[in-house]
């Protein structure tokens, strides 16, 4: 069974690949944009997690 974090990783990876291919025209820019989206997804999720942890305390 997937953990919550592994679910986030798979979600971010799949969505980033589609965003990269559809939002850019050149292969190099596609890869860069996909990487950028992936990092933002993961960083955003971790930031939101810490904020929720702080609110709970």
């Amino acid at each position, binding site marked *: *069974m*997937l953990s*919550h974090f592994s*679910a986030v990783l*798979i*979600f971010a*990876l*799949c*969505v980033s*690949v*589609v965003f990269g*291919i*559809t939002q850019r*025209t*050149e*292969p190099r820019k596609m890869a860069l944009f996909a990487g950028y989206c992936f990092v933002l997804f993961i960083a955003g999720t971790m930031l939101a997690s810490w904020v929720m942890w702080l609110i709970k305390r």
Partner: protein
Amino acid sequence: MMEERMATHAEQSTHTSGKATAALILGWIIPGAGHILLGKWVRGALLFVSILTMFSIGLALQGKVYIPNTGDLLAMLGFAGDLGAGGLYLLARIMSWGAAPVVTALADYGTKFIVVAGLLNVIAAVDAYSLASGRKAAA
């Protein structure tokens, strides 16, 4: 001479429009197939794997597949998102996958995976249309 050119241009335009529509519809039915139709094999394969993975994981997490005419506004939006998956959605409905009620947090994640897979498929199909019609530069 001028009339011949205009006729040729009109024929090419019709051909391009037909191909773009075919890429859109095929890309909706089978994720990535629109790109494969245009000869973009790697992109098509990556789109297929990504969208199929999202949809499959959603089902594996016991996510819900929305059905039409429930009367609930959020369920209607979920249905619209799910419908974007095209052939995968039809397959899920035929096989009665995702019919169980959502009872865990992970199943709720699964429901979102399925909806997002549908929305991503719509983006991919429209991208194939844009490539075929020349609205997006083909690299």
